[in-house]
């Protein structure tokens, strides 16, 4: 799985951090999401899909082989 995050779309809602805290964080200055792991391990895949699904800004894309 490859995770793509578009920071220009992000609205700092923090939904991704709540859904997949091992994969996403928020930067201190403005809360914009940052990607911690671009190729997360299999046990995190469901959380990442959930993060992409609930992102209010549709800023997360997931590429699956």
């Amino acid at each position, binding site marked *: 799985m490859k995770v793509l995050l578009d920071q220009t779309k992000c609205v*700092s*809602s923090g939904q991704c951090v709540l859904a997949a805290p091992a994969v996403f964080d928020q930067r201190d200055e403005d809360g914009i999401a940052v990607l911690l792991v671009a190729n997360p391990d299999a046990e995190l895949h469901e959380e990442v899909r959930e993060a992409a699904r609930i992102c*209010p800004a549709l800023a997360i894309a997931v590429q699956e082989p």
Partner: protein
Amino acid sequence: MTEAVTDTPAFPMARGGCPFDLPPALVDRMHSEPISRVKIWDGSTPWLLTRYGDVRAILADPRASVNTEMPGFPNLSRGNAARAHIRAFINMDDPEHAAQRRLLTSDFMVKKMEAMRPRIQEIVNQLIDEMLAGPRPVDLVEAFALPLPSMVISELLGIPYADRDFFHKMSRLMVSRTATGTEAIDAAEQLTAYVAELAESKIAAPGDDLLSRLALEQLHTGRMTRDQVGGMGRLLILAGHESTANMIALSTAALLEHPDQLAIIRESDDPKVIASSVEELLRYLTILHIGIRRIALEDIEIAGQLIRRGEGIVLALDAANRQDMAFPDPNTLDVTRDARHHVAFGHGIHVCLGQPLARVELQVVYRTLFRRIPTLTLAKPVEQLNFKNDMFVYGLYELPVTW
């Protein structure tokens, strides 16, 4: 009932027997005509969207504007229309909106709200101690649901909690569907002036709070006017206490009426169960219950329906959150379901800024209230409770409880 099909139904619609169910006429719209026109207070006939997918699509669509000043905008009420020119960033489109919202996004980050959890726990403990030491029955709204978020937002913003009677009263007039235009304008202006004055005083004597930061970085430097800072603070005060207070009281009443669900929350040590309960109650109750509003800047085609430029759009968040395609068996309160994709906080660029704070507050409440008072019960039958049908934000005027 063939007449109802051809008549344009009035909106908002009245609730039926159960105060936690959607209005029957809204359910009828969802099933018979999920995109259809409704008649609002001023006689205009905006489009009502009820389906989860359609609501999310419009909320994510930059062609749907939040600018309340545009002619034809379907304002919530007469009072709301009268104060439509007093706009905070939630009533502005990008890039104006993003520029202002971004000044606040770091303050409401998940980790900052998590850092407030111990303080929120302390306030919750203290309020429950006071309730337990006082007489029974007690009004849970007055003793608990309203003080908690009011204290939290006061500390976060740096406004004196002693001024609560004033900001509660102004906020109530701003969310009332029955306030006159004069009352609504006066309340918005008074609250704006109150924050602006406080911000000015903080330039000389700043504290470690949000308003001091805005005062120093924005007001003192001339980046923002007095009125802009006042407007931002007005929004944060209102949104910071009103919706959370209503959610605490209403969800407590709903849980007391669903003892099996309450037992799951009371008996669980798992923060994930508490977190999922919060999401489910947000979904099930959807306290923004009379639709959030947009106006089409261009022609928009949605699910085969053309919405023309200049036409108003009402997005029924409560209906969307009860759609079976998105939430199987949607009318059942099930705190174990995955409800995280609900739209109770909205969706898109205007999604609620304070949602991480609201979540922490509600989680601490659910974890604590029912354990500290395991025999908590309604002191009046639910049918006799006074629900906020005449407000933009649904909730309870009083919640008499005993134990």
